[in-house]
């Protein structure tokens, strides 16, 4: 009996060791280029390790049973008539429930840190005649915050392009330029069908919905050029609907901005 338990403990520690090793050494994700990315990757790592433990454990159990309990030649009769084991079944109901609950709470915490839980202040734009409803995207900010210091950009999506409007400079660009380490607020609206704004290196995605503007905020942390990908089937050229986001130093950004901005027109 003692022997058996030792084997069990050995196998379990082996499964844990291997899962942790893979979890920490195998990187499946692209570069981290926004504040959200490292937070996301933390959650990913935890889920990856728990998943590996369960998957490797179950696979070993199935393959072991097939080998160990296979019917040898000439063997007759049945296995033991074991129909259930209440305490075992309670254990494997309670343990997964706890794990699931902990994962849920943890990902709630991650979501909160990403800014997903902030309530949106709906009644801004009191001046504008139609009080439109803005739908919640991830990392929202309250309207006051936007007003204070964010770089705000208006995104419009159409078959099959993204256009970025810089209201302060009064110009439209096909490429998204943003300064590094500064919070960007985007208000996104579609001209035709549903599109989605996805930057894999930022770990953010938000649908762009016709008739219902959505908001997306992010803070890039690494200078570079990253793809913007449309992730919602939007027609034949959906696969070609891409743009780039260029994250640059503040000075480079200002240079670009000043080159493009149009003077205010006074009528």
């Amino acid at each position: 009996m003692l022997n058996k338990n030792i084997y069990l403990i050995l196998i379990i520690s082996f499964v844990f060791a291997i899962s942790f090793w893979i979890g920490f050494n195998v990187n499946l994700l692209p570069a981290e280029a926004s504040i959200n990315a490292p937070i996301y990757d933390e959650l990913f790592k935890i889920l990856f390790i728990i998943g590996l433990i369960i998957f490797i454990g179950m696979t070993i159990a199935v393959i072991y049973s097939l080998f160990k309990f296979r019917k040898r030649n000439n063997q007759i009769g049945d296995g033991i008539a074991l129909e259930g084991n209440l305490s075992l079944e309670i254990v494997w109901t309670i343990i997964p429930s706890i794990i699931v609950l902990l994962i849920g709470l943890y990902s709630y915490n991650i979501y909160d840190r990403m800014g997903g839980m902030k309530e949106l202040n709906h009644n801004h734009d009191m001046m504008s005649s139609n009080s439109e409803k803005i739908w919640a995207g991830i990392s929202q900010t309250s309207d006051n915050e936007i007003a204070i210091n964010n770089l705000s950009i208006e995104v419009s999506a159409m078959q099959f392009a993204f256009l970025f409007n810089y209201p302060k400079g009064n110009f439209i660009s096909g490429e998204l330029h943003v300064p590094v380490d500064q919070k960007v607020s985007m208000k996104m609206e579609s001209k035709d069908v549903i599109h989605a704004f996805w930057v894999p290196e930022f770990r953010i995605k938000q649908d762009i919905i016709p008739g219902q503007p959505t908001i997306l905020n992010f803070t890039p942390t690494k200078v570079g050029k990253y793809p913007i990908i449309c992730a919602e089937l939007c027609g034949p050229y959906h696969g070609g609907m891409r743009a780039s986001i260029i994250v640059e130093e503040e000075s480079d950004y200002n240079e670009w901005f000043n080159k493009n901005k149009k003077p205010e027109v006074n009528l």
Partner: protein
Amino acid sequence: MTISIDPQKTNNESLQPKGWLRYFSFSLDHKVIGIQYLVCGFLFYLIGGTLASAIRIELASPMSDFMPRDVYNQVLTLHGTIMIFLWIVPVVNGAFGNYLIPFYVGARDMAFPRLNAVAFWLIPPSGLMLVASYFVEGAAQAGWTAYPPLSITTPQSGQIIWILSVLLLGGSSIFGGINFIATIIKLRRPGLKLMQLPMYCWAMLGTSLLVVLSTPVLAGTLILLSFDIIANTGFFNPVLGGNVVVYQHLFWFYSHPAVYIMVLPAFGLVSEILPVHARKPLFGYTTMVFSIMGIVVLGLVVWAHHMFTSGTPPWMRLFFTIATAFIAVPTGIKFFNWVATLWGGKISINSAILFSCGFIINFVFGGITGVALAQVPFDIHVHDTYFVVAHFHYIVYGGTVFIIFSSIYHWFPKVTGKMLNEKLGILHFIITFIGFNLCFAPQHWLGLNGMPRRVAEYDPQFQFVNQISSLGALLMAISTIPFLINVIISVRNGKDAGDNPWNALTPEWLTSSPPPVENWEGEAPLVEEPYGYGKEIYEQK
């Protein structure tokens, strides 16, 4: 001719064609209808599989060079629609349900044999109509989800045929669902208690409840969508003030439960197969029943996890995260119980058990990525990418299709009286298992690293991994060859099976193979312990 309601009389043998011609007639025999579902579904599976191969050929290179882009979207839409509505749902419900449920409850036929036949005969014409729409101008190309406004603005004739066809198929599954509920509740042989039913009955009861509760919502939604297309109404059309997210809520209220409509019957089938070949009782019968009902209830309240990026409010995202993740608990219980059923058995290693064990391994993998996807922050990055494609194929192919094959190996001797060839069967399993994992495992990486789904062209950096995936798809296509050869050879020249080649205890094995028209020569046997392996009641026989 007078119409008789009594199934005994309408099944009058002299009125029915004999031999294989029976299968081409409006038969009322549940066994014939079951086989009709299976064969019809398999033919559509071959079409859907051919389309899948076409998709994978296109994706072997980063440019869109194998077919025009809009044709790619049509092929993709047809592949998804066929696989769900014409292969998996009709086969795991209609085919096995019709064949097995009357045996399991000790009845001579389903509760409403005519309705049953009608439910089946809706499928071939609507399926053919759907396939035919791909030869007219502008076939449906908005994906199997048909999200507006895309489905309203793409060419319309094909989209309308698509809607009509899905409505008819939905009608067919509602008829089937009503029939299963009535048969299981009302036609049970006197003396047979609910808690003595084989597990597949419970699975079909749960599934049929889901079908009856959620399919009408899909029907209503699609009818509204067709109004938007034909009559210019504005339910979902934003130009006319419609709301596109409402469509998504309604659509997923059906289509999330639809996943369980595909996997719950598979759970039931594997619960029948494992005990027989492991020679042990099904472990934890009662918890198995409760976990099915738990899945049914939870399955109805988690639809919005498909919409985490659609602008849903934060509280809603949270609720749906927790509810979704909790489905892992009843599902996990079932998997532990199956492994415990194997544990300590005397397992015959054959094609049926290998496909079942392959199912357990693949489904656990798909289930784990499912729990990850339920977490809002996780889902936001991978939603609508190849990660999701990989996840759901692990469920629908690695889970359900594996079980369909396992079931065919298990029940073929009952249906035909002949055995299938085990060597070919095991070859079939090995190629399928390798091909499947080669095809879909790498797609997780693709999605995480930036490849969206439903695209005909992609970033060249993903080419190598896509080629591995296409190679896996090729292997899966090849794997159907030994299977088809096996079935054709065995039907004609297979070894005689005898009535009960596996020494199984469930009622369908207690009659001749193939069974007589009314299932049993005499009275239906009362099987009190369908899983009594290793027990005295069984030893005495």
